[in-house]
């Protein structure tokens, strides 16, 4: 892996490579065809031209119909990648996703399976306001039968998308809007899948474990690098997959550092940080210097005004303060 690429290009490349490798891979969603511009951000650009309009279908604005078509085709042996343009719009298709895609394998006693991928985007700080910015991964992680991943870089986006498409079960693939556009390291290696359910050690460290994913990985790395100059050594785990959680990596890291922060963009209350924090406390009770810190967005809808959006979002400054406070505790903690 080397060079840079945008996440848009990386996902586009993954879809291209998957469609080329397997004629059963399909793409559907609003505006996804090339006649419609190949997706509002161009993520599906070129696919309908290359693989034909019958495998890459622009749909009406009808997310239940989109998900239904994807579910049915998946049951019949295809591997559809369905776009729900923004994560907030999954709300109009929750029945299809949760009552059907997630459950049909189980309810059929394993006779049918639903190998589909839901691609969706979200993220605050774009000024899109209350109905276009929510991170709802906690809902899907609470739903047995679904897998959820949120990549933070082009190589992971590419590799996780390949894995999602190859996976025999429904996967939700969340693209974080503010990091979709710029050229980022690392560009993917063609054909290299990244396994689901495995976190990435973004930075090794010994003092505090920062558990994060998506755009927040950048904040974490920034804070870690800044504090390294002060001899504060953060370990950064990029979860990549939210469900299933890579508990081995999480517990291994926190057992070593003795302190953990879960840092995500979703609202903190009842967010994924709660599950991660609870599991760490359950498994490492008595081995932590301090309680696990959860940092997430404020318990409010996403506001429009820039000033409020900034307040709403968890920030690198919040993270830095949390690390400092945990490291302050370090001195006071009993040895071992």
């Amino acid at each position, binding site marked *: 892996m080397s060079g840079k690429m945008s996440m848009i290009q990386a996902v586009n490349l993954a879809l291209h490579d998957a469609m080329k490798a397997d004629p059963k891979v*399909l793409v559907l969603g609003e505006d996804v065809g090339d006649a419609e511009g190949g997706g509002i951000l161009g993520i599906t650009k070129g696919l309908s031209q290359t693989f034909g309009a019958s495998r890459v279908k622009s749909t009406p604005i009808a997310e239940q*119909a989109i998900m*239904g078509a994807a579910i*049915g085709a998946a049951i019949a042996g295809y591997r559809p990648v369905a776009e729900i343009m923004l994560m907030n719009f999954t709300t109009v298709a929750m029945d299809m996703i949760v009552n059907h895609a997630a459950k049909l394998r189980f309810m059929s*006693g394993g006779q049918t399976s639903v190998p589909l991928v839901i691609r969706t985007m979200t993220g605050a700080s774009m000024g899109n306001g209350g109905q276009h910015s929510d991170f709802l991964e906690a809902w899907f992680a609470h739903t047995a039968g679904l897998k959820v991943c949120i990549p933070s870089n082009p190589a992971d986006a590419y590799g996780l998308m390949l894995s999602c498409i190859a996976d025999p079960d429904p996967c939700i693939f969340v693209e974080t809007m503010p990091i979709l556009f710029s050229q980022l390291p690392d560009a993917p290696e063609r054909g290299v899948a990244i396994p689901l359910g495995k976190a990435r050690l973004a930075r090794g460290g010994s003092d505090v474990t920062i558990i994060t994913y998506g755009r927040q990985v950048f904040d974490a790395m920034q804070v870690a690098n800044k504090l390294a100059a002060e001899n504060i050594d953060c370990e950064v785990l990029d979860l990549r997959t939210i469900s299933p959680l890579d508990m081995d990596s999480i517990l291994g890291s926190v057992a070593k550092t003795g302190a953990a922060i879960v840092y995500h963009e979703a609202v903190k209350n009842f967010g994924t940080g709660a599950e991660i924090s609870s599991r760490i406390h359950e498994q490492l009770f008595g081995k932590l210097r301090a309680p696990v810190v959860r940092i997430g967005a404020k318990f409010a809808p996403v506001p429009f005004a820039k000033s409020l959006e900034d307040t709403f979002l968890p920030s690198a400054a919040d993270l830095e303060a949390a690390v400092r406070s945990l490291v302050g505790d370090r001195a006071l903690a009993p040895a071992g």
Partner: protein
Amino acid sequence: MTPARDEKIDIFRKMSLLKQNDERIRAVIKSGRLVLPYYSPRGQEVIPSAISVCLTPDDYICTIYRGTHDSLAKGVPVKQLWAEIAGRATGTCKGKGGPMHITHPASGVMVTTGIVGSSMPIANGLAWASQLSGDGRVTVAYFGDGASNIGAFHEALNLASLWRLPVIFVCSNNGYAEHTKTCVGTSVDRISDRAAAYAMPGIHVDGNDPIAMYGAARQAIDRARAGEGPTLIEAVTFRFFGHVFGDDDAYMDEGELEAHRAKDPYPVYRAALIASGDATEAELAAIEAAHAAEIEEAAEFALSSPYPDSREIYVDVYEEELSA
């Protein structure tokens, strides 16, 4: 198009199986030997029977909680169906799905849903797969009159029409959605008229008349198989035992239920077959007797089958078992 003599008998054969199967299920529930939520389709035998004689075993259906008839008519083995509604390991779905979620891909029964409206969008996907692969299959989506008022109906019919999918939308209008009369929830007199909103043919048919129902089914299925796209069929019928087993009928008009039961399509069709000379009393009685035995055997099979092992809770959540 009218059915050939063989097809007429086949329709009766299915009706006999469906009717007796339903009677037996209700009897077993009443006896206390089984406890399950049961949405009897008794009275609606004609619709899936006539449709199913027009389908191949490979064709797909998506149906709903009231879909026992639809599944059986499509070919789900009676034993496995019984074992499933009894929650046994030998059921179609190992007991995990239950009566509202009969699935049996070997018979083309791909999805049975408990969510009103949801059979239609998924049927589209199955039909899309057939369109892509050119396997010549058609997909039937069964649903009720009440379901024609939910958003999924609209989205699914629009998409099916745009994509010219080989799918047939079969609305069994039985006059009620739970305890609500069709006219209280449905703003239009004929649900089949809604087809025009999707530039799709809409057929209004007496769903208790096997010959008319066969004609409607043939027309829609032929059209779908020819690649000409979907059809909406509204088949008018009635359910003889309320919404769910145990319901009272206080919400119905006085005498309404009795009037419908008096027109039970089963004896009417049986008598017609004999009167027309298509069958003899003895032939039909033999069919019925065979079904009675088959159903009896299925019930015993189910009731004597083992319950699923508790480990099954961890199986089929994903293909691979994940550690909790």
